[in-house]
């Protein structure tokens, strides 16, 4: 598997005791739009900042596109980073942002930048501080895309946007990935933001990968089973129980299995991505939280 981000026992501590990320091991494959999901405080932002070279690790190792992050100007040019809340310089105009981008980035795509600016109504003379939230996000995305990176990292890019602006943002991002081949990693604490756009999902909780894999595979191998009450020990060996709940008569399981489920006692329903993630979050206290699940190649 070709990886764009590879972390090994990666840790970041602030001050003497506060670990924002601890012992994080993850492989993020190339050629995908990867969704990094998890509750607030899971370490998503810290992981992404470490990958973008905005932070130095306290412990462990991280490589990005095969090298240390932000090591050389060449490496910097290969990775784009859009930090949380669409960071732009409020006092600078749109045109000044684009000039700055052109000056700082060796592979700057001026055509792409001006085309996107025109399409989203980013008037060159307007100061960034006067743009709407959606427009500011589009400006930040334009700067990230026009850099023409091999990997674009976005931290909670749509969290503060209204539904329409969210959709426009994702439309622009997906259109760019269709046109120019590059890898994308984006984080969100909402699975619904990522459901359509991501083809690979990494669920991070307390610095640990609970589940990672191609979205299609995850959806095809997880099922909800409902039927008469049954002990987990009486399920077939190939069915890994992700979470279970029981009443005195009925059992509901979420299982992972490659094989079809033939048992006529069960009503089998497919799981949406959101329910799938919730099933993993649900089971955490019961299982061993330190064992990451296998990543499918």
């Amino acid at each position: 598997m070709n990886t764009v981000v590879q972390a090994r026992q990666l840790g970041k501590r602030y001050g003497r005791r506060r670990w924002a990320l601890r012992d994080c091991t993850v492989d993020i494959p190339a050629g995908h739009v990867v969704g990094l999901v998890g509750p607030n405080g899971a370490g998503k932002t810290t992981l992404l900042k470490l990958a973008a070279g905005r932070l130095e690790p306290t412990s462990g190792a991280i490589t990005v596109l095969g090298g240390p992050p932000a090591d050389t100007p060449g490496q910097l040019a290969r990775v784009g980073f859009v930090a949380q809340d669409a960071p732009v310089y409020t006092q600078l105009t749109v045109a000044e942002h684009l000039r700055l981008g052109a000056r700082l980035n060796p592979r700057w795509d001026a055509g792409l930048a001006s085309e996107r600016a025109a399409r989203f109504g980013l008037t060159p003379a307007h100061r960034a501080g006067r743009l709407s939230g959606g427009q500011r996000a589009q400006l930040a995305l334009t700067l990230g895309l026009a850099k023409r990176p091999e990997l674009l990292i976005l931290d909670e890019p749509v969290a503060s946007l209204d539904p329409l602006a969210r959709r426009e943002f994702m439309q622009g991002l997906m259109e760019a990935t269709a046109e120019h081949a590059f890898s994308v990693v984006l984080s969100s604490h909402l699975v619904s933001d990522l459901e359509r756009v991501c083809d690979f999902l990494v669920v991070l909780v307390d610095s640990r990968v609970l589940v990672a894999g191609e979205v299609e595979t995850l959806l095809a191998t997880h099922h909800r089973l409902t039927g008469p009450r049954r002990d987990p020990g009486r399920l077939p060996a190939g069915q890994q129980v992700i979470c279970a709940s029981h009443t005195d008569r009925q059992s509901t399981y979420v299982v992972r299995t490659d094989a079809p489920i033939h048992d006529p006692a069960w009503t089998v329903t497919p799981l949406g991505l959101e329910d799938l993630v919730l099933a993993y979050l649900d089971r955490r206290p019961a299982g061993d939280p330190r064992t990451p699940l296998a990543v499918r190649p």
Partner: protein
Amino acid sequence: MIEFYLDTRSGVSPYQQLVQQVRHALRLGLLGEGDQLPTVKEVVAHLAINPNTVLKAYRELEHEGLVAARQGVGTFVTATLAGTSLAAHGPLRLELRRWLAKARRAGLDEESIEALFLTTFRTPAQEDIA
């Protein structure tokens, strides 16, 4: 040209929805031989979905011999689904109507009819024979 839509609550995966919509359009004669499908970039920009989803749908349609990709031009319809089965629709619908009337006379409400149809429809073929 057709325009795709996605039903996020259907439980059917987005790529399957795209495949179904093309098949549906072919069946109804909305798409015919030589017609072009929207480009991947157009679909992606319209629906805000992952490009691989569209590529996978188009590959499946290609595999079924319904469309063909022309390098650098786009994806075009190469077959039709309408002609062959359209003639059978009328008689089948008539039988289905009769069956529905029978089911209602037997006291089944809408929901029971739907459930009965779906479970029968989804039961593997070998059990039908047994």
